């Protein structure tokens, strides 16, 4: 894994941040040389107002910090990041909130977490990635920001990844990882499940467990409830 550093902003005063970074870097100059950075603005109080993302990145760059992604929840921040083609990560604690969103009405969700700045924005919908040829061992296919649909067999040693759901219409003998950015609502659908691994939002089962499942070899629907991977007959 690549080690990244998260810069969690608690204020929006760039001049102050400049001084703070300068102090930090002075303490350990070698450490801050070209380090990959995630800027987190999801904890930034509402009252701090709109951030100037470009200026912020430039400031970080000045101190040797290379911005990889923005962790944000507010619509304006996400839009600013997209404009700069900067990847956006969901706010920390998004997983708990997503479940609440599914289960509870919005009013209830707000009552439970009144201190949170705003509910996380639904990721923008991208068209599904559709693969209409066999996916062979050694091949990897990733559907960023959306669903992956495979019309054909997926071999042992092949890997399917999606930020959203994964559908496989053919024998599935490889690995499928849905919700790779942490979407616990992501699901997997297999016409014939003989997978090496199935994973949703990082919760997984490997072939050893899957083979013992009564649904092995059948049409299945895979979903997450809490931290349990459910496999049910389609």
């Amino acid at each position, binding site marked *: 894994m690549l080690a990244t550093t998260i810069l969690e902003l608690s204020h929006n005063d760039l001049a102050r941040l400049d001084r703070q970074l300068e102090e930090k870097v002075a303490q350990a100059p070698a450490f801050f040389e070209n380090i990959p950075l995630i800027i987190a603005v999801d904890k930034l109080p509402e009252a701090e107002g709109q951030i100037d993302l470009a200026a912020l990145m430039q400031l970080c760059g000045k101190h040797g910090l290379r911005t990889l992604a923005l962790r944000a929840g507010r619509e304006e921040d996400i839009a600013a990041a997209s404009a700069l083609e900067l990847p956006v990560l969901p706010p920390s604690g998004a997983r708990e909130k997503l479940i609440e969103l599914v289960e509870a009405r919005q009013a209830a969700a707000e009552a439970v977490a009144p201190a949170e700045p705003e509910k996380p924005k639904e990721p923008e919908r991208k068209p599904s990635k559709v693969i209409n040829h*066999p996916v*062979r*061992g*050694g091949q990897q296919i990733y559907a960023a920001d959306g669903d992956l649909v495979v019309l054909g067999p997926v071999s*042992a040693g092949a890997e399917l990844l999606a930020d959203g759901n994964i559908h496989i219409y053919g*024998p599935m003998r490889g690995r499928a990882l849905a919700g790779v950015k942490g979407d616990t609502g992501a699901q997997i659908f297999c016409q014939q499940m003989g997978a090496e691994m199935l994973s949703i939002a990082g919760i997984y089962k490997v072939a050893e467990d899957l083979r013992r499942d009564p649904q092995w070899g059948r049409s299945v629907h895979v979903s997450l409830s809490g931290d349990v991977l459910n496999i049910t007959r389609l």
Partner: protein
Amino acid sequence: MAKILVVTSGKGGVGKTTTSAAIGTGLALRGHKTVIVDFDVGLRNLDLIMGCERRVVYDFVNVINNEATLTQALIKDKRLENLYVLAASQTRDKDALTKEGVGKVIDELSQNFEYVICDSPAGIETGAHLAMYFADEAIVVTNPEVSSVRDSDRMLGLLASKSRRAEQGLEPIKERLLLTRYNPERVTKGEMLGVEDVEEILAINLLGVIPESQAVLKASNQGVPVILDEQSDAGQAYGDAVDRLLGKDVPHRFLDVQKKGLMQRLFGAR
């Protein structure tokens, strides 16, 4: 323009060279001007199986390096009028093959032949990649066992993504499965995968099934491609495969355990 056909597998020792020699010879027997090219630089073998090892003067690498012309390097088969072999170098290492060099030779061969058969080395490295890069069709040689099937699957992925056709967005390489060293008895005992199992996993068109046969070893020791041993089961199975390659609809044989009945003992194999 010739059809460029690669014989490949990923896994080693599954029967690629045996197959290249048999299919190439079969095509020539049926009147098609054919050349078989050995891509296994450093481990050349094809010339032995074709029985022309004593007549190798120049090889594939010499032609790439402009040390010899193609005409000088092509070895004409003694038995068949329209069959040629381009031997691999025994002394060079694998880096002697380059994409430009191979492309140039393949292009030149395409002008003069109907079929160019590329006998791939094992693995998925440079040699194997260059052998399949220019192909129009691929014969994926597989033994009925899990590791061989898995390597073939991997190779199929490369054929679909790392070939010239894939890179240029042309029609994909036509892929065909040739199951070799098939032993129905061991399949029945569950010691080997059956034809259906392999077909299901790889999901490609079946070109043929070549039985495990003593005739293959005998043929390669004599330097005669096994397809010329028309009495043998393996020779006949390769003959069927060539017919299928040429578009004929031929039923598959040698798939079942031979029952040694009285008729069979009297009249020999079918």
